[in-house]
């Protein structure tokens, strides 16, 4: 159970998908015009994320490696359709205000990212809590951005008009989303720096891959464990063997193309 709690903490704070991993920027910037929209979008995504994580984790031994992405998409799209119909039936106002961004949850990179980097490799319960944690982290970030934008841009909180000051309208438009997101990220980075100075460990736990392999010290990243950038000495032999492999590949390609072309089979030294 400890691992499950760790996944929750990881998703909520340490690897908050919006403010730390910078994933799912499209819904983050587009739908957070009010706190209610942010909350609705976040919770919808959370439900889809949790359910798809569970199903993908259950099916992880069945799904063939080569077609895993289409398989993920089918699972995610099914849940998104279910959520879309439910929202349309029970919360039509939210359905109208979120509009196109509900079907777009299918290609939300947080969901695909968690499926790929966590659910596909881990058992069901940790995957469930990973989905919950990431989803709630997303919800909190979106609600916060929506709350700030709604307060400054419309002088209201969750739709309740306050009327304290003249609202600054630009915060309800697209530029406002960038302003608020940038400030929140800056605060997050500052908090991280202060934490690091106090000797707190701020490194990521089993990160969703940020494609930054150079600075990545994630042990759990199985795919890249072998060919991580290490101090490899390149010798003349290596170069020669690589060249031979290439020549062989070309020869094989030619062979496939036409039987008439003559080719030489070159012995390849075993790779180091």
């Amino acid at each position, binding site marked *: 159970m400890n691992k499950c709690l760790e996944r929750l903490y990881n998703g909520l704070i340490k690897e908050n998908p919006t403010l730390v991993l910078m994933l799912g920027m499209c819904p983050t910037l587009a739908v957070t015009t009010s706190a209610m929209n942010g909350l609705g979008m976040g919770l919808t995504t959370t439900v889809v994320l949790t359910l798809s994580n569970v199903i993908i984790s259950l099916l992880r031994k069945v799904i063939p490696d080569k077609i895993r992405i289409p398989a993920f998409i089918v699972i995610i799209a099914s849940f998104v359709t279910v959520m879309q119909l439910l929202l349309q039936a029970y919360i039509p106002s939210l359905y109208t205000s979120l509009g196109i961004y509900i079907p777009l949850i299918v290609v939300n990179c947080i969901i695909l990212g968690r499926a790929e980097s966590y659910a596909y490799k881990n058992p069901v319960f940790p995957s469930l809590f990973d989905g919950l944690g990431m989803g709630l982290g997303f919800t909190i970030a979106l609600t916060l951005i929506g709350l700030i934008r709604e307060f400054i841009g419309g002088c209201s909180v969750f739709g309740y008009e306050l009327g304290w000051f*003249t609202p*600054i*309208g*630009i*915060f309800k*438009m697209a*530029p406002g989303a960038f*302003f608020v997101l940038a400030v929140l990220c800056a605060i997050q980075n500052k908090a991280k720096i202060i934490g690091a100075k106090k000797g707190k460990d701020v490194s990521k736990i089993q990160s969703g891959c940020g494609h930054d392999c150079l600075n990545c010290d994630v042990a759990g990243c199985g795919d890249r464990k072998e060919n991580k950038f290490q101090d490899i000495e390149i010798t003349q032999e290596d170069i020669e063997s690589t060249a031979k492999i290439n020549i062989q590949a070309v020869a094989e390609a030619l062979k496939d193309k036409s039987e008439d072309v003559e080719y030489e089979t070159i012995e390849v030294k075993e790779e180091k």
Partner: protein
Amino acid sequence: MDELLKVSSNPHIRSKLSTDKIMLCVIIALLPATIFGTINFGLYGLVVVLTSVVSCVVTELLFELILKKDITVNDLSAVVTGLLLGLNMPPKAPIYLPIIGGIFAILVVKMVFGGLGQNFMNPALGARCFLIISFPAAMTNFVCDAYSGATPLALIKSGESVDLYNMIIGRTSGTIGETSMVAIVCGAIFLILLGIIDLRIPGTYIVTFALFIGLFGGHGFDTYYISTQLAGGGLMLGAFFMATDYVTRPVTRAGQYVFGAILGILTGIFRVFGASAEGVSYAIIIANLLVPLIEKITYPRAFGRGGEHL
């Protein structure tokens, strides 16, 4: 070997013009427009301009104090930004407008990107557009004690006639600093004589704009119509004082002509085909964003090199 040779790194020939002197000249050049605005719109106009200046300077000072950076308020660029922003305010602007505008201009457009020399667009115009989008009602309300009607440009747009003489003198409604063509041109001539700005950008801008209006304005090359378009709105203020901003204009000579032409075409498009009567500030901001591209295509060829590169 008694002689001591002075060894120093280049540059060995220096111009006596420094940033603060240039900025001081720009401030002096803007004074006629400021004074005319005060006479035209009353003391409250001056209060708006001064608030904007103070807001800009205080924001820059506080930012540098809090982040423990070098204090650069002495280079007077914040004063120029504040002055330009203030001159772009409507005469009866509520006092929070110049305060918020000044903070936005300095904090978001200038300091966050690294201070003077690093800003990607003109801070005063960035703030003006921010204010127009945020407070559309307050920023386009030109009703004041002296004038109650719409701006001359809005009148022209709706097909009414305007008095060209009053427009050139500046006795019309509009923002505090933009109305008087005479005052602005006086300041501009002062700057041109000192060699601080040249006519490349403003000249290309105005000529292109006049041609565009003649071709697409719907009135042909009617001198009266083109003159009212030139004298109205922020065209003169923008052409001489904002498009020529050292930081946000192209550095190459050919690029400056391209920049001026783009400004003229954009302003024409906004004024003729846009919903609003005025379009100078948006034109300058968009052209500012294009400056890196303009510089890339007008990069001068090194002497002796062939024509393989642009």
